[in-house]
């Protein structure tokens, strides 16, 4: 085998310019895939991380029917004390995969600065639970947060940036919240603005935050009730399997009509960014298909030329007793060597390009998210997958010319000039 590769490499070097051009084309393709994958996957992961870690969590549980009417932020689809206890048991049972969870009450209200009034969406939380379930929420809060576990206190409100600008509100200002209660009556509560929070893409990305106890006072909820649970997983990569486990657990709870009590959604079901993430994945696949086409055409071309130019040589080695299978391996080894050498160089250049992009400290804006630092990385599995694509396609594209060479009759090949 060593000798087959020695001859293969020498044959490649025999046509230096042609080999170089083909190799450069493959290297370009590999670098393109690595840079594109690195940038787009990092962007996607960053955005998903931002959405899940600072807003949605990885999974959310609501009472059945809540999500379909989530735009109205209904209060009649709350999970009661009994439901909360059922959920507590499930979370305890699966504490090996669930890192944290946060109970929330989401509702709509009117916010007044005593001169102007506007509507606001609010998420009422228990700050310690919320900080554990969405640890990057505090990063969105403008100004310093002394204790992330107490980022919202009773009597305070965190308002979204767009409202603070529109109503000219700043920390320390007083506002009044007016909200409809569950029974239809109206109640008001005076709160002090503690912080301003920057907006984020998607529903609840522009919510204000208050303490859950204030929400209960405002909404006149006297029992333990919530309408949303955000769940953070220990390993986000196991989202699919945990989703199935929890869906199975939740399906056992039925109401009197024998319908499920709860509904479970992943972040992707709730965020419009999931569509963008799918498009990014599709683009990566497209770029990989381009790479496959580059490798396939360029190696097929060089190997076909190689076989046609060396018919007489094929005749010679066959005449002196080289088995057809070894002739096949000789040509396959050329395609494989070209593929593997190009992919190694392409990997090195691609990773260096990603390092250079990181050194350049590129910032970008996405939706309402401004000045985001693009921190690019690429997983070793992605590098391995790109390399395997090139090597496998190189071998496949060498196969046809190699088969042609191995099937040549020595007597015909020797006659070839």
């Amino acid at each position: 085998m060593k000798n087959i590769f020695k001859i293969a490499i020498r044959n490649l070097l025999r046509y230096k310019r042609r080999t170089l051009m083909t190799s450069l084309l493959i290297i370009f393709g590999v670098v393109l895939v690595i840079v594109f994958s690195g940038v787009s996957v990092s962007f996607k992961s960053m955005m998903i991380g931002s959405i899940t870690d600072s807003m949605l969590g990885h999974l959310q549980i609501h009472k059945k029917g809540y999500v379909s009417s989530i735009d109205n932020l209904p209060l009649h689809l709350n999970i009661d004390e009994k439901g909360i206890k059922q959920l507590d048991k499930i979370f305890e049972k699966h504490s090996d995969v669930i890192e944290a969870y946060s109970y929330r009450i989401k509702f709509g209200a009117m916010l007044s600065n005593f001169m102007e009034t506007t509507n606001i969406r609010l998420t009422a939380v228990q700050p310690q639970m919320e900080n554990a379930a969405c640890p990057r929420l505090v990063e969105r809060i403008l100004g310093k947060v002394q204790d992330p576990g107490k980022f919202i206190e009773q009597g305070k409100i965190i308002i979204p940036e767009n409202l603070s600008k529109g109503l000219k509100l700043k920390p320390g200002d007083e506002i009044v919240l007016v909200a409809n209660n569950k029974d239809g009556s109206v109640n008001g509560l005076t709160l002090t603005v503690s912080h301003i929070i920057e907006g984020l893409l998607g529903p609840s990305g522009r919510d204000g935050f208050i303490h859950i106890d204030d929400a209960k006072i405002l909404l006149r909820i006297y029992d333990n009730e919530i309408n949303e649970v955000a769940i953070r997983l220990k390993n986000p990569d196991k989202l699919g399997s945990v989703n199935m486990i929890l869906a199975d657990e939740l399906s056992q709870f039925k109401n009197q009509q024998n319908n499920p009590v709860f509904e479970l959604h992943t972040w992707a079901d709730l965020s419009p960014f999931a569509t963008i993430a799918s498009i990014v994945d599709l683009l990566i696949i497209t770029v990989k298909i381009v790479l496959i086409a580059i490798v396939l055409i360029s190696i097929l071309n060089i190997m076909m030329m190689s076989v046609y130019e060396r018919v007489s040589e094929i005749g010679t080695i066959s005449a002196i007793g080289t088995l057809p299978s070894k002739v096949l391996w000789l040509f396959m080894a050329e395609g494989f060597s070209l593929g593997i050498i190009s992919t190694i160089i392409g990997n090195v250049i691609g990773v260096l390009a990603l390092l250079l992009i990181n050194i350049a400290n590129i910032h970008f804006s996405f939706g309402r998210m401004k000045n985001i630092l693009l921190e690019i990385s690429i997983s070793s599995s992605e590098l391995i997958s790109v390399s395997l694509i090139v090597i496998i396609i190189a071998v496949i594209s060498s196969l046809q010319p190699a088969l042609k060479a191995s099937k040549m009759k020595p007597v015909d090949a020797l006659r070839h000039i």
Partner: protein
Amino acid sequence: MSLVELKHVTKNYQMGEMSVRALKNIEIEIDEQSFVSFVGPSGSGKTTLLNLIGCLDKPSSGEVFVNGKQVNNFSNKESALFRGQHLGFIFQNFNLLPVLSAYENVEYPLIMVQNIPAKKRKERIMHYLEAVGMADQKDKYPSQLSGGQKQRVAVSRALVTDPKLVLADEPTANLDHVSAFKVIELMRQMQHDFKTTFIFSTHDPKIVKEAEIIYTLEDGEIVDKEIATL
């Protein structure tokens, strides 16, 4: 027992709708350690005859025996194995692999065909390169060698597998007179030293005289057999 035996061998080629008879009812017996030449004008069937003996082609009818084996029914793989074990080839255009040095060209059949261990391989290669006087040129590539030198390396490559029979198709056609005679002399010496049978084709009357047995072909038939008195 004969090393090569052809019985009623004919070979037809299909040229479009026409069938061209390249060999007609050939009957030959060649003994071991002979130095045989096929002579005749172009198109007389010399190369076709060598190809049949060398298991590179199959007859349209008749039987071909080499080293006691009937080779005309061999599959492609069996033919390749037989060639690698029992036959050596020398070509008109030398046919050395350009990416390999003289040493590596001689080494090629030992690695790719006979799978000989490295130590034994080196001994054998040097033995044959020395025998043809090319040991000092072993690291040169074919492009760095003259025609005569290339053919010496080719002789060395043909002999390194210790074949019973070496077939040479016009081995001197691309050489000047001096080199041509040197190559024939070398082949003769190898035949003597290594007890190898040589069959070569040529149309050069001066070269032909070096053979022990001369078969003359015309229009695909053997028209004369001459045994030289040396």
